[in-house]
Each structure stands twice: as structure tokens, then as C-alpha cells.
């Protein structure tokens, strides 16, 4: 099987925020929310970025979409470096990548009708005749499972799941190559989650979409992804395809993360040795030297708190940042 070429290639991406501790006069220090992160997403596939809150997964996605400023690195979508674009070129490039947000309640304009929300990206990209746009909106509504007459309603008249369908239709309006889904189902009730996840997978097949899928729910990730990047404290600690990552995780953090997921499978519960990781992550402003996971890692040795392990390939396509692997 030939490996499809990467659609998105992110290299050495960093995002930092200035923080002042101790009032206005205190010295400025930097918080690296994303620290030297590299990954790629193959065309037509789904890369999931997983991690706990504060791991930098959403910031990574926002930086790729130019919604927060990166401090270093590149993000190539095809041949274009998104991070180098400015002005009109950037505006044009935005059509090629779109965002589906977590909260379907606050991400839709309450004063616009559903049809206008979905048409707005088309209006701003003005490469189609006004007459054609209504046809596009009609097709999008049908594709996401909404009725045509619902275009006249306002967001508050929809349920959470339906609102997320509007958000998806809006994201698809400009026929993007890459769709970034930032926790697209975590605000929804469990029974509605399945509807949206099935829809996303069906649309991926129909339109050949590439997804960058951000989630903290490992069950959802396991169902949706083709490959996974696990983030911890701004760094990727493990990056592998779906089967090796879930069947033979190598980084102690990935192992602990997977073992912490509660399961309805009685056999798995009996078999699983829960790897409890005690304590909390370190202070992101004053990071300790060495591996960022060392203070919670059940396997840590002396060298782990001295030098930081690089992300290296241990098997084809399977990268791990750990001294002990």
C-alpha cells in the first residue's frame, strides 16, 4: 500500500504566551503552551491530538489555523506555509482550512438565521455567483441532515446536536481540504454524540476530507482516528498510527492515560492494571529540567530529570519521547 502524501506538515511549531507573576512590575516570563511540535496529517485521513487540559492540543490547532500567533515553526498545507502568509493571501488560504468548535452554543451568531450562518463563509470568499450560493447552502443542509425549511430558524431554536450540524455545514461551505475539529462532541449528550461522530465519518468519505481531530475522550479518538499524537505539557510524547498506539502504547504517559479510561468491558477491567499517576503536572512557567512527565512517571530514573528525551522513531511511523523506550 502506498502511503498518501501528507496534506498538513507541521514542523517545530511553538506558541508562547507572556505571563507576569507577582503584579505589574514583575519580570515577564514565557509560558510555552506548544513547544517545538512536529507532526503531519495524511490526505483523506484523521490525525487525533489527545491530551489532558493544559497539554496544548487546542493551542496547536489554533496556531495552525492562524487564530493564535505562533512564535516559531512552519505549517505547510500542501505547498503553502500557512504561518508565513499575510494579508490577502492569508484571507484566501482560510478557505482551505476550516474549524468546527467545541461549544455549539457560543460558536453560532445568535442574530443570524441558520441559512445565513452557513452562507457567510461563501459570501466572504466571493468566488461564486450569489445565485449559486443558495444552491450550495441547500446541498450542505441536506448533507448534514437538516431540513431545508430549517434555514429560516435562529440558533436558539435548535438542539445542541442540530447546532453542531450547522457548525459542520458552515465549516464545509468553502470546500476546505483540512477541517480542524476541536472537541466536536464533548458538549453533547452521549446519545447525540454518536449521531455527530457518524456524520463526521460519512462526510469524510463523501468529500474526501482530512481531519485534525482534537479530543480528550480516548474512546471517541479510537473510533475516529487513523493516527494519534499524544501531547503532555506542550510536547508530543508519542505519535503513531491507530493500531500500534492503542494496542502497544510505549510512552508511560500514554499507558497511564489509556489505563485510566473507565470501561464497561468486564474482562478489560479485570485484566487492566491501572497505572495510577499521582500528583499534578509541573508548573508550566518554571518547567523542571529533563522529561516533563518525570515527577509523575512510575518508571522514572535519575537521567529522566536531567535531560529531556527527544521524540525519536522506534518503529516505522511510531515515535516516542522517552529515555526508557
Amino acid at each position, binding site marked *: 500500500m502506498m502511503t498518501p502524501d501528507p496534506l498538513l506538515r507541521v514542523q517545530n511549531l511553538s506558541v508562547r504566551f507572556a505571563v507576569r507573576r507577582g503584579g505589574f512590575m514583575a519580570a515577564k516570563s514565557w509560558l510555552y503552551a506548544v513547544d517545538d511540535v512536529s507532526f503531519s496529517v495524511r490526505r483523506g485521513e484523521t490525525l487525533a491530538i489527545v491530551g489532558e487540559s493544559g497539554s496544548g492540543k487546542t493551542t496547536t490547532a489554533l496556531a495552525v489555523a492562524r487564530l493564535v500567533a505562533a512564535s516559531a515553526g512552519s505549517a505547510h498545507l500542501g505547498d503553502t506555509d500557512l504561518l508565513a502568509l499575510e494579508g490577502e493571501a492569508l484571507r484566501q488560504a482560510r478557505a482551505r482550512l476550516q474549524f468546527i468548535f467545541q461549544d455549539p452554543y457560543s460558536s453560532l451568531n445568535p442574530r443570524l438565521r441558520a441559512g445565513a450562518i452557513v452562507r457567510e463563509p461563501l459570501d466572504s470568499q466571493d468566488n461564486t455567483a450569489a445565485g449559486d450560493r443558495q444552491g450550495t447552502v441547500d446541498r450542505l443542509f441536506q448533507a448534514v441532515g437538516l431540513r431545508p425549511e430549517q434555514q429560516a430558524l435562529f440558533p436558539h431554536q435548535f438542539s445542541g446536536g442540530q447546532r453542531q450540524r450547522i457548525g459542520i455545514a458552515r465549516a464545509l461551505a468553502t470546500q476546505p481540504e483540512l477541517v480542524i475539529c476541536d472537541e466536536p462532541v464533548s458538549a453533547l*449528550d452521549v446519545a447525540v*454524540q*454518536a449521531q455527530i461522530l457518524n456524520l463526521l465519518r460519512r462526510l469524510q468519505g463523501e468529500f474526501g476530507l482530512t481531519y485534525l481531530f482534537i479530543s480528550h475522550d480516548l*474512546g471517541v479518538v479510537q473510533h475516529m482516528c487513523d493516527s494519534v499524537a499524544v501531547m503532555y505539557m506542550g510536547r508530543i510524547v508519542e505519535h503513531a498510527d491507530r493500531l500500534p498506539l492503542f494496542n502497544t502504547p510505549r510512552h508511560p504517559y500514554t499507558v497511564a492515560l489509556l489505563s485510566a479510561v*473507565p*470501561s464497561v468491558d468486564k474482562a*478489560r477491567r479485570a485484566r487492566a492494571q491501572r497505572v*495510577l499517576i499521582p500528583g*499534578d503536572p509541573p508548573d508550566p512557567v518554571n518547567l523542571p529540567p529533563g522529561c516533563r512527565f518525570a515527577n509523575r512517571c512510575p518508571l522514572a530514573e535519575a537521567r529522566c530529570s536531567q535531560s529531556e528525551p527527544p521524540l525519536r522513531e522506534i518503529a516505522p511511523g511510531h515515535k516516542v519521547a522517552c529515555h526508557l523506550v
Partner: protein
Amino acid sequence: MSALLSVQNLRIELTTRDGVAPVIDDLSFTLDAGEVLSFVGESGCGKSMTALGIMGLLPDRIGRIAGGQIMFDGEDLTKASEKRLREIRGNDISMIFQEPMTSLNPVYTVGEQIAEVLRAHQGLSKRAAWAQAAELLDAVRIPNPRGRIDDYPFQMSGGQRQRVMIAIALACKPKILIADEPTTALDVTVQAQIFDLLRDLRRDTGTAIIMITHDMGAVAEMAERMIVMYAGRRAEEGRVDTILEHPRHPYTRGLVSCVPHITDHLTEARDVLTEVPGIVPSLRDFGQDQCLFAARCTMAEDRCRAQRPSAVAFGTDQRADCWRAEDV
């Protein structure tokens, strides 16, 4: 042995703009000492209202207990005075909430908030309460408890704040702890820590736990029995293992199978997830004499839309409120 808590035919009504709606409609269940019972369902199904009803914390002037009994240790809580309820709350029955961020008072240190409970309910002196607060912080595994007792909530992480909430709830060694989505706002590794803590505390103190959640995995990890709620009514009740093995209500079956459950021998195969179409009905449709799930149910027939189903028992420990439970 008689049950610690016995709820009989409980009916809780909420007054809305559209009229009075029964958010809890004829609910009965029992809780034994030391048992973990879980309420499961989507939002808007009445799980939290059940908890607030037991605690006597229904929203003022909007919610009220319209019928039934809540028997706790031989006393009917629906008839108890506000003063008596204050004694019971925190002392015999206490509660932890979903949002550890907003349920602590931001302008008091965590030590003051724990000690307050001990002074109010157990009449401890300031000094004794403070010493015991430090012990409680230690019991919920906050490292360096004597150093952290003077911290304000904002100085703690989400997991630590939830531990403080648990310390407050357990300060007076209650007989029942109600945990309303205790880990929904927390990361999964922190969730695992909190579950371990709750399991250990229950083993050491014999506290019964009512856990409200929408996560079947969490139910399977924590609870012995579960009650599936739908639109203010019980859909199914029974032992967790029995129900997970063979749910007898189509809603339970949907809840279990609509979630992609994590497995550790993953294969290339990826099935389409089972969908439960539609959403929970709005309050104004509660209380009708029919199966309220019928509109979303693939097995519904005429009878389901004409009459509220009665419970069908399977063995001694499983009951489903469904006309077609035998066929599920």
C-alpha cells in the same frame, strides 16, 4: 436489614412558563448502607433533581415535592422542617457537585471551609476543627496538608479542589454521599485518582454513595446497582453487571452501544456507531400516559404510545419499564 434510604413514589414538580411539569414522576428505590448506587441518563432526565429532592435543595418556589416519601433512618424527609434538614445536610447526607471550580467559596481558605462544617455540625472548637481539617486534607491525599490548608481555592488544581469538596462532604462521616457528576469536569487521569479515593473512603467509613453520571464506563467501575432515568421516570433498574450484559430497555441498550468504548485489542474494523435518534423530550411533554421514549425507540408499537409501561422483572435484581422488555 431495612434500607438506609427508601424513596417511595416520589413526585417532584417544577413550575415552568408552560405550567407544572413532573420532573420526577413516581420514582421508587432503596439504598442500603455502604452501597454504591448510580443514576444514569442524558441531561434533562431528572438525575440531579432526584439528588436535590433528597437533600431538600429544590429551587425555591419553582420546585416542590408533590407526593411520595423519602424515608431516611425511619424519618420522612419530605415532612422534615427546614431546621431539621439543615441538621441532616452535611451531617448525615452530603453532596459533591460537578464543578469543583464554582462550588467552593473563593474568598475563604480551604481550611476555613472544611473547619466551618465541623464547627457547625459537631460543635468543635476553632482549634480542634482546624486540626481535623488538616487530617481530612491528608485523608483525601492532598500532599503537604498543613502547608496547603491556608491556600485559597484558586491556588489549587481542579482535581485538588474536588478533593477539598470531598473532604468537606466527608467531614462529619455522613451515611450517604451524593456525588453529582463528580469527575465530569476533570481529566481522565485525575478522574481515576478521584474514583480510587472514593472507593477507599467508602471501604474505610462505610458511607453509601449515590453517583450521578452519564458515563457507563464510570458506572461499571464504581457502582453495584444502577437506575437508568429517562424523562423523569425510571427506565431500568438492576445490578450493573446484569444490565450491561443484557439491557432490557431499548434506551439502556442505546446508551451502552452509542458510545465508542475503548478496547485494548483494537482491529482495523470500525462499525458505524448505534444512534439513538432524536433528543430528550422537553419538560412540557413529561408526565403523559405513554412511554416517553417511544418517539426515539425503534421497537415502539401502538401500545407504547397509548399507555405508560409498567415494570417487568427479570430475575430478582433487574426491572425494566418497557412494554416490549421481553423482546429487547
